[in-house]
């Protein structure tokens, strides 16, 4: 009797969207096309949007809904050069506040887009080890990153005839399983044993490759720590067409390991993604890379072409029956698009809002098809697992957390950077690897903005999935951000709340409204007469957001704040 609801069939979608086939072949071009217009003229006008809508068979209202979802797409006139300057916790702790003041003195207030240049504040740009960073959108040219950045440099680039990136190389002080192997070309990659794993995999049965991954005990490095083997098997068992998606959207504040991996060793990621495609029987792979990573994007796209030219991507890879190709999709400034189902919507040309699970991606993911999603670091482990066998991998680390983990160390440490260690090391060990604290230790943010502040004995908890979760903390994406006693923590904790309010997609009430109420309450808490009332409010928000938000963003948006209260960084009676 009722229409709509669950009774909507694919035939109805066919009518609604001009055929599912065209939804797949054209609508998914929406974000790349918006990027194109944005990067040629600096903003997307009404006329441009109408033209895009017509060509892609998307209604203008929907295309507008998509365009306005992303920080890097402007629907109002903007100057040709806009600097997005990081004012997030990593850079704040490292002292970037004075650089922001300097910029304001010399360029005026942020977000004034009337002039010929402009600047705006940005959430974490994934350059935390540099201590300050700017991402500059350049209409009619290539976007550039400056890190570390001074106000002087940013202004220079905003005026330069041909802006050039200025990024100090990430300090990599070790040769480890995942790091220290800077590959300059495909042949260089091969001289390090590259492509051997892919060739070996192609001689194996796909199911046997999956078995090795299962035996390795590899768990996802994107934050959720889900066993990779279970996902690979589930996707492998489904009927095609299927997809592999590499999640390279890395936007968790304090996280920069995936950027380093892609900049250092893009060939290995391509090889790993192809092996994943073979193992689960996928037709195509997508790498969804963060929009603020122009350097990694260039490295990866050049590498993909080189690999394709050599016959390791495309039809009949290395003379086998297996055909597979990889397409890069660029994010556009939305943390939520790192959530796997939001990422699918983003690729498909819809607003990057998460989907209610179930169904899970392994059943219905990208374009409604079974999809394997893995993080960059997770995939980078695959070639070694294929070559050395899953058991060898499982012998590293602990029983439940196998292999090694990359830690993104930033803030007040002497040697900020990416460090790799077998699972089992504690937060304190990781800080020691990075040369120790710069100053006296106050607290450490472990796991990112969605992680928690730790201090005291908790610093000795091994950062394995099992020990961390028993101690009520989370390894997350491997963030270890150090704060010394000079840092005023109230603004840091507030900045985390601001981050979540800014990045909430807005779909569900607990997160859309809860994030702003948390942000407001934290500001009141600094001066409140009645702290207990604010703390009770924050606790009430914590419960509803954890219990009832649709996705991990809302569910975890209170964790760092609550941990800061628990260990007395904020909210204590003064």
């Amino acid at each position: 009797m009722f229409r709509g609801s669950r009774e909507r069939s694919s035939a109805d979608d066919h009518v609604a969207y001009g055929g599912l086939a065209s939804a797949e072949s054209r609508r998914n071009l929406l974000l790349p096309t918006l990027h194109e217009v944005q990067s040629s003229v600096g903003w997307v006008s009404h006329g441009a949007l109408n033209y895009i809508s017509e060509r892609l068979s998307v209604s203008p209202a929907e295309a507008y809904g998509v365009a306005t979802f992303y920080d890097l797409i402007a629907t109002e006139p903007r100057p040709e050069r806009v600097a997005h300057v990081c004012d997030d916790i990593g850079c704040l702790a490292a002292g970037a506040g004075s650089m922001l003041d300097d910029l304001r003195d010399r360029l005026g207030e942020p977000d004034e887009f009337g002039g010929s240049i402009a600047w705006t504040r940005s959430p974490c740009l994934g350059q935390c080890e540099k201590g300050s960073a700017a991402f500059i959108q350049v209409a009619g040219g290539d976007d550039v990153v400056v890190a570390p950045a001074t106000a002087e440099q940013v202004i220079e680039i905003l005026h330069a005839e041909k802006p050039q990136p200025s990024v100090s190389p990430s300090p990599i002080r070790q040769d480890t399983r995942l790091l220290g192997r800077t590959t300059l070309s495909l042949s260089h990659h091969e001289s390090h044993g590259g492509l051997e794993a892919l060739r070996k995999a192609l001689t194996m049965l796909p199911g046997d490759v999956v078995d090795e991954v299962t035996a390795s005990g590899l768990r996802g490095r994107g934050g959720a720590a889900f066993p990779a083997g279970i996902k690979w098997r589930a996707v492998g068992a489904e009927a095609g067409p299927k997809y592999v998606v590499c999640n390279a959207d890395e936007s968790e504040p304090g996280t920069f390991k995936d950027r380093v991996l892609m900049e250092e060793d893009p060939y290995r990621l391509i090889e790993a993604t192809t092996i994943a495609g073979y193992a689960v029987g996928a037709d195509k792979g997508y790498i969804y890379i963060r929009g603020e990573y122009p350097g990694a994007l260039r490295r990866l796209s050049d590498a993909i072409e080189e690999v394709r030219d050599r016959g390791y991507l495309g039809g009949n890879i290395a003379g086998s029956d297996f055909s597979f190709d990889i397409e890069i999709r660029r994010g556009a400034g939305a943390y939520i698009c790192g959530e796997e189902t939001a990422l699918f919507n983003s690729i498909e040309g819809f607003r990057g809002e998460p989907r209610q699970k179930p169904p899970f991606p392994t059943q219905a993911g990208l374009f409604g098809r079974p999809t394997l999603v893995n993080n960059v670091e997770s995939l980078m482990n695959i070639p070694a697992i294929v070559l050395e066998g899953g058991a060898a991998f499982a012998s590293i680390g602990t029983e439940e957390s196998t292999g090694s983990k990359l830690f993104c160390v930033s803030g007040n440490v002497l040697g900020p950077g990416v460090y790799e260690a077998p699972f089992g090391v504690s937060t304190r060990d990781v800080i020691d690897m990075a040369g120790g604290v710069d100053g006296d230790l106050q607290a450490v943010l472990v796991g990112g903005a969605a992680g928690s502040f730790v201090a005291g004995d908790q610093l000795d908890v091994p950062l394995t999935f099992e020990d961390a979760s028993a101690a009520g903390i989370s390894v997350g994406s491997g963030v270890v951000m150090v704060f010394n006693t000079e840092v005023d923590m109230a603004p840091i904790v507030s900045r985390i709340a601001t981050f979540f309010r800014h990045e909430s997609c807005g779909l569900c009430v607990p997160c859309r409204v809860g994030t702003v109420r948390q942000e407001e309450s934290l500001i009141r808490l600094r001066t409140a007469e009645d702290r207990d009332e604010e703390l009770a409010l924050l606790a009430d928000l914590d419960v509803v957001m954890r219990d009832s938000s649709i996705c991990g963003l809302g569910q975890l948006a209170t964790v760092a704040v609550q941990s800061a209260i628990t260990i007395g960084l904020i909210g204590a009676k003064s």
Partner: protein
Amino acid sequence: MIEQRIADPVATVTVTIDGAPVTMPETATLLEASRAAGADVPTLCYLETLTPFNSCRLCVVEVAGSRTLVPSCSRMVEEGMEVQTDSDRVQHTRRMVYELLDSTVDLSLVDDETTRQMERYGVRTNRFGDGYRRTEAVKIEDDLYVRDYEKCIMCYRCVAACGPDAQNTFAIDVAGRGLTSTIATEYDITLPDSACVYCGNCVGVCPTGALMFTSEYRMRESGDWDEDRQTVTTTICTFCGVGCNLELHVQDNRIVKVTSPMDHEVTSGHLCIKGRFGYAHIQSESP
């Protein structure tokens, strides 16, 4: 020869709702199961005729083994599920969601059911100081309907009705992100300039009065709107042969609003501009 299609028998599953077993077809939702078991579960963004958007989270229930609460409006029943429809956690979410919504938008025109549920959960107003509130001027762009987004709870119903669930016109969508997102046409152009075909189906599904027929809006403004003085007459639209049922809401012998029953075979509550707004000639006073 007469062909007769016999529907496949639908398998059933048994779930436990608040301790009592309930057997439902496997295509049922937890909401349907809960209500079949007599549980009083509030909803706000959900409407039987639309695809669930899961946005309000009022219908959440506690399912044994699930870390988070589960939106019952969209979650299918599974064999053996143990469900609590009004546990402490559930009550907390419902009260907080109402409080969060009430603190941001004007809920003065929500339906009686929502008012009853807000009382049931002891909703306290004004818990959040004078923080963010949605402020936007009422959009009056034509004589057919007005948009007052200060009342909008972002339930997405209108977007679904204008889009793939009913009208397939896609004149409006959510624009922006997060807290400040709104329902909008492209570049916020006026409705007459947009793709809108004035079917009024968005108005028909809006639960908050954010979308309202201009006739009703004007009468409310002048204080003349009085539902106690209204009668509803069901008839069939005379404009074409489809056979849509119309409900004519009449006050003081004038039609003040036209709706269609949600459970009507032909319309599912949706109409076109003619049935919805084409009644001026009936009450024309010129000879």
